[in-house]
């Protein structure tokens, strides 16, 4: 169950000079450095997939082989190499995770900031956010994904569209604190427009929270993509970790071929854990009460 990783607490904006120092402090924490390392390795795997392994296609002679020197992660019931599937699946997970997260971040930040500063928008946005947060998201995404032709694009849009409410809620609560600060009143007195205040005064103050949200939203998007692919709603032309698990389930060899379940599961765990920890540690770093800045 995904309880909120972040508490909605007010944190004053950080000056640029402090920010540079805190990047250094950030990477000095072992858990943060390790998470960033895992993320870098994942990105490298995704980019270099064609160099590392041939895209799995067609049937091979070695059926249901356990992990060995020739097939590091074993093979499935069609004789395809699981290692190659996992490597190619990294692409799908990362692309959908990042792209969906960006959609959610743009929507969520815009809606969150608008409702933090403009009262009438807040009334509507809060109702919409509450409704979306109250609904079971997975069945909703399943219903929509089943109607459209599944492709990387449609999946990204669907996942991104249903991930923004959490972002909006987080950004709104921080934005409300900033809107109440004296310098916002100052800007208003000086005649700044609402648009200018939101984009130039409030947005910079929440930008570090936005960065944290990118990572946390991406990790949720990766889980959503795996879930939809596992239910048979993934892009049929792209390998995905969820699809490997679905194949294991469908072929009826789950009980024998444990490697077909274990390795993609570990990949999901590592990627999501790394993104979550990287986000949380970044959140700690930007909190002056913890690093004494």
């Amino acid at each position: 169950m995904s309880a909120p990783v972040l508490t909605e607490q007010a944190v004053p904006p950080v000056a640029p000079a402090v920010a540079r120092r805190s990047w250094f402090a950030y990477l000095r924490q072992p858990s943060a450095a390790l998470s960033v390392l895992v993320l870098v390795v994942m990105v490298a795997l995704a980019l270099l997939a064609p160099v590392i392994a041939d895209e799995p296609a067609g049937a091979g002679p070695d059926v249901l082989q356990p992990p060995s020197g020739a097939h590091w992660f074993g093979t499935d019931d069609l004789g395809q190499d699981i290692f190659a599937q996992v490597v190619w699946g990294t692409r799908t997970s990362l692309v959908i995770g990042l792209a969906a997260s960006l959609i959610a971040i743009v929507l969520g930040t815009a809606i969150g900031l608008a409702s933090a500063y403009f009262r009438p928008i807040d009334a509507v946005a809060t109702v919409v956010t509450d409704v979306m947060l109250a609904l079971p998201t997975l069945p909703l995404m399943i219903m929509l994904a089943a109607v459209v032709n599944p492709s990387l694009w449609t999946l990204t849009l669907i996942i991104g569209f249903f991930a923004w409410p959490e972002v909006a809620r987080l950004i709104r609560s921080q934005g409300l604190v900033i809107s109440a600060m004296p310098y916002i009143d100052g800007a208003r007195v000086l005649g700044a427009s609402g648009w200018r205040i939101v984009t130039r005064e409030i947005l910079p103050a929440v930008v570090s929270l936005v960065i944290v949200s990118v990572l946390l939203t991406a990790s949720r998007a990766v889980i959503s993509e795996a879930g939809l692919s596992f239910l048979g709603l993934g892009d049929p032309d792209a390998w995905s970790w969820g699809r490997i698990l679905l194949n294991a389930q469908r072929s009826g060899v789950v009980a024998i071929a444990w490697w077909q379940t274990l390795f993609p599961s570990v990949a999901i765990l590592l990627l999501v854990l790394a993104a979550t920890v990287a986000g949380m540690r970044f959140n700690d770093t930007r909190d002056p009460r913890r690093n004494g800045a």
Partner: protein
Amino acid sequence: MARFVLSRALKAVLTVWIAITSTFFLLRLLPGDPTTLMVEGDMTPEMQAALLKTYGLDRPLWEQYVSYLRELVQGNLGISFRQIQPVVDIIVDRLPWTLLLAGTAFVVTVAVGIPIGVAAAVNRGRWLDRALQALGIGGHALFVPSVAMLLLVFLGARLGWFPIGGAIDPDTRGAAAYLSLAHHLVLPVLSLVLVQLGPYALTLRTNMIEVLGEDYIRAAQARGLSARRRVWKHGLRNAILPALTLMGLQLGTLVGGAVLTETVFAYPGVGRLIFEAVGQQDYPVLQGAFIMLAVTVVFANALTDMFYAVLNPRIRL
């Protein structure tokens, strides 16, 4: 109290209405709308038109919406494309299994999560607390089908301790049937609990630490109340409230997890039905399942809020 209950129920109805309305229009505005999906390629135009007429899909969108809503209020969710049977009947057959699975997972998570969270808060910084913090973060990274399939492979298939699929052995009667039911429930429930427990207990711990620093806890200490009484009576009651709200808000995630778990264990609930309907492109069933699950989650959430109001000493209704 009656006013609070009424307004909370009204909010739930409004939420469901917004959900139904927006999905109705979204589904019909999407590129591959039900009209084109239903019509198969080798039909003559006359046959297509007749089919569309049967399902009322030839009328203006607004009219379709009004009649859809009218039917919905009367408990009609349409006819399944594949099994010529009302969608409502299909789902109502399956819903009790999902409620049993998700409900058991909910109760187990709360029952196990509370003592762990409290113990971690009281022994702050000790091994249990550290383990819980790792589990709380790790829980976010667990993918339900991964956990479920690994449990199935190792505890089910390899060790043979638990059945690997289904909900009950149809040949059992009486007490043996209940035993079989419980036996089949263990792995699916465990899959959901393992994913939820860490984050839930961690939230409870955080609330508890905050509460234990409050003045009224210190006042209780000054009055000479035992540590056990302070923690379990005064502390927990206040720490549990935010955790309860959180649990209510997470019901949607719980139902999503149940969909995935049921798929792995071929558990005969709505989740498995959804998986089957995806394979058969049975859109009325998917839409109906979403609506039924949304209604369940939204009203369960409303109940949680009412429960909260009863428990919270600061709200006297």
